[in-house]
């Protein structure tokens, strides 16, 4: 394993603390990525979408 990665894994994770809420940077990044993906999925246009009849069939 590269020394940089093994050094990172040997150290304790960095945590953010806001009052009762404590979360690691890794977990926070994953939650933010999921949130951004969700918003983008709602607002970005879907390529090639077309209405082929409009009766839902």
């Amino acid at each position, binding site marked *: 394993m590269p020394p940089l990665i093994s050094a990172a*894994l*040997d150290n304790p994770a960095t945590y953010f603390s806001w009052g009762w809420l404590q979360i690691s940077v890794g977990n926070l990044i994953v939650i933010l990525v*999921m949130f951004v993906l*969700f918003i983008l*999925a*709602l607002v970005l246009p*879907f390529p090639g979408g*077309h*209405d082929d009849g409009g009766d*839902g069939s």
Partner: protein
Amino acid sequence: MTAEVESHTVAPAPGDTWTGKFRDRVARDLPPDKLLPDRQPSYVASWIYVFGVLTIAALLVVVATGVVLTLEGPEWYHISDVGHFFNSLHFWSVQLFFIFMVVHLWGKFWMAAWRGRRAMTWITGVVSFIVSLATAFTGYLMQTNADSQWITFEAKDGLNAVGIGAWFNVTNLGQTMLLHVCTLPLVVGLIVVLHVLLVRKRGVVPPIDAFKNEPAAASNTAEVTS
């Protein structure tokens, strides 16, 4: 000879046997055009409808890389470069699997995807999420590094506190490994197959306002959307 054989053939009425009933039910609920459709309703042309199949794609990578790890063994994936690569593929495809599944869950929750007799589709999705958590948990336990030692001994106290430590001992690496590579993936796979078959049976859930001007169609979306 043929006539003699035919005279001894037992021929129950169609639908009298369990195989006949099962066949009739499958043919009724999942005809080929429902099972493998080549057209979808126009509202499916949205990125939010993509995350279910992305979750399945990630699951296929998880299973494929897991099979390679199982065949080669811990020495290979802990020491060799190719082993590290497959170990990382397995780990990161699990991360993508959960990220895609959570976005899929959020999307389905906010469109109330249990509408139109789709309660079992929703329930199998929830169960597959819970069993996937257990599968990922046992995967973290068997990394055989300092991280997994920490998780194991924290989890041991938690599971003892809720009273199930006697039959699920997370410090038993053999039990954990068998659960992770055999039992739990099998359960996840079966539930996901059932979930997909139910999606095909009932059709993709329409947006809440898709039929606001056609209340009759809204009550019968399973037939309309498939």
